[in-house]
């Protein structure tokens, strides 16, 4: 049975930090089912499972606030682009797609997709891919799903975003272990609880994005001659806890990623040029939204707050946000500059500066459907042309 708790904060949370707090609360404790700020942001009202300990919850939320949220230097988001069109889609698009059988929730943050979303995602990807290959001279790669744990450790993923990490492991190859496992599974009503104790190590992870694959690919060696732009599309995985909803936030999704290498000026210049080209595409697609300076939700380490602050202040990250209903905009793409962080971490010869851009294809397709409707045949001809959809229908 669910329980309610009221946690008093040491001081009211400033409005400008509410979003940074809100995006971390579910990660504080798995027992939290729902929450809202109350009493002028001086208290948090929690709905939890029965097992929750209020003193423990207060301690964890207090730590998150002091460590990750309150140290942040925050200003109103700096907007670098606003769409020429302003459209506010009606809410309930996901439910309508579910009624038509286009989407089906199959697990936490996992959605099965059908037509026309598949065609829209493929058309979006083909359009972005064409831009990368023909206008930016990109080289395309395809990666295995699994990425070595050592690769993510090498670039500090686990100390930056431990909350998102998802792992792939296996039962230790040993006849006795297999036999013991078989017995346990036969007798257990909960096989999921029987697995981890019989696994030796976690040598592989599910990739949180594609660019780590690219950096790992070129670790400890030189980039192929003349290569400045690499691109890949692949399934990506992030544990979004209870933040997952509709197609806006999934645990299991698809990214088209572009990685830029070069001197500082080259990497920054490529990011800027690709950002502008992507905003042109957004205008061709006649979508309503904006592009703003953003930051990642660094979590739990001692410098988490400073890292978010510097990301915003230095404009290391821009996000293209599109409206999906009256209240919500979702980030369908991000454009990031890493300085020499990944070049150093992966010992890429010459220690290049790097930048990357990633498009969440489910999100982008969902935003298009929210704004233009579920039937691409009835979209404006200009939008269909921009996605080369003329022939597909």
């Amino acid at each position, binding site marked *: 049975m669910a329980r309610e708790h009221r946690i008093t904060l040491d001081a009211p949370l400033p409005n400008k930090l509410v979003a940074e707090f809100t995006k971390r609360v579910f990660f504080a404790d798995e027992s939290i089912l729902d929450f809202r700020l109350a009493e002028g942001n001086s208290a948090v009202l929690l709905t939890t499972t029965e097992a929750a300990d209020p003193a423990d919850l207060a301690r964890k939320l207090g730590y998150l606030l002091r460590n990750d949220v309150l140290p942040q230097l*925050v200003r109103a988001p700096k907007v670098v682009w606003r769409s020429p069109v302003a459209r506010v889609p009606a809410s309930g698009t996901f439910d309508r797609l579910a009624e038509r059988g286009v989407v089906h929730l199959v697990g936490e943050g996992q959605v099965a997709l059908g037509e026309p979303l598949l065609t829209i995602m493929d058309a979006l990807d083909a359009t972005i891919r064409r831009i990368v290959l023909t206008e930016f001279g990109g080289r395309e790669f395809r990666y295995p799903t699994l990425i070595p744990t050592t690769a993510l450790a090498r670039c500090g993923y686990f100390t930056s975003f431990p909350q998102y990490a998802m792992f792939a492991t296996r039962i230790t190859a040993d006849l006795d272990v297999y036999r013991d496992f078989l017995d346990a599974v036969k007798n257990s009503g909960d096989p999921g609880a029987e697995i981890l104790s019989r696994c030796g190590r976690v040598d592989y992870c599910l990739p949180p994005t594609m660019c780590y694959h690219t950096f790992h690919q070129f670790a400890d060696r030189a980039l192929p001659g003349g290569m400045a732009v690499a691109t890949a599309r692949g399934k990506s995985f992030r544990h979004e806890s209870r933040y997952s909803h509709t197609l806006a936030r999934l645990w299991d999704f698809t990214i088209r990623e572009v990685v830029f290498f070069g001197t500082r000026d080259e990497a920054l210049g490529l990011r800027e040029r690709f950002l502008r080209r992507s905003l042109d595409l957004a205008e061709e697609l006649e979508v309503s939204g904006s592009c703003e300076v953003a930051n990642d939700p660094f979590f739990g380490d001692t410098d988490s707050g400073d890292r978010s602050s510097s990301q915003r*202040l230095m404009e290391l990250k821009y996000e293209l946000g599109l409206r999906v209903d009256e209240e919500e905009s979702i980030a369908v793409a991000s454009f990031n500059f890493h300085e020499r962080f990944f070049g150093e971490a992966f010992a890429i010869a010459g220690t290049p500066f790097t930048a990357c851009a990633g498009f969440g294809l489910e999100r982008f397709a969902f935003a298009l459907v929210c704004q233009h409707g579920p039937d691409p045949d009835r979209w404006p001809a200009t939008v269909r042309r921009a996605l080369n959809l003329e022939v597909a229908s």
Partner: protein
Amino acid sequence: MQDDRATIRDFVLRHVKDQDLSDDQNIFASGYVSSLFVVQIVMFTENTLGVPVAEEDLDIENFLSVSSIHDFVTRKRNAPAY
């Protein structure tokens, strides 16, 4: 007493370790410091120079070089108090 520009230059050069860095050069392009240094610059501006950095001042243009930090500090010191 040391003037603001000299204090700022000392602070930046202590971290950048490039004695040839001119006042107008981008601190972060030097490669000696990462973007995290910008947070230290803001703290230095507030704590050492005693110039509060308001929300609307959190713009990279104010912290990119010794000169831009100095211009920002001078502007804030000369701003009329309300």
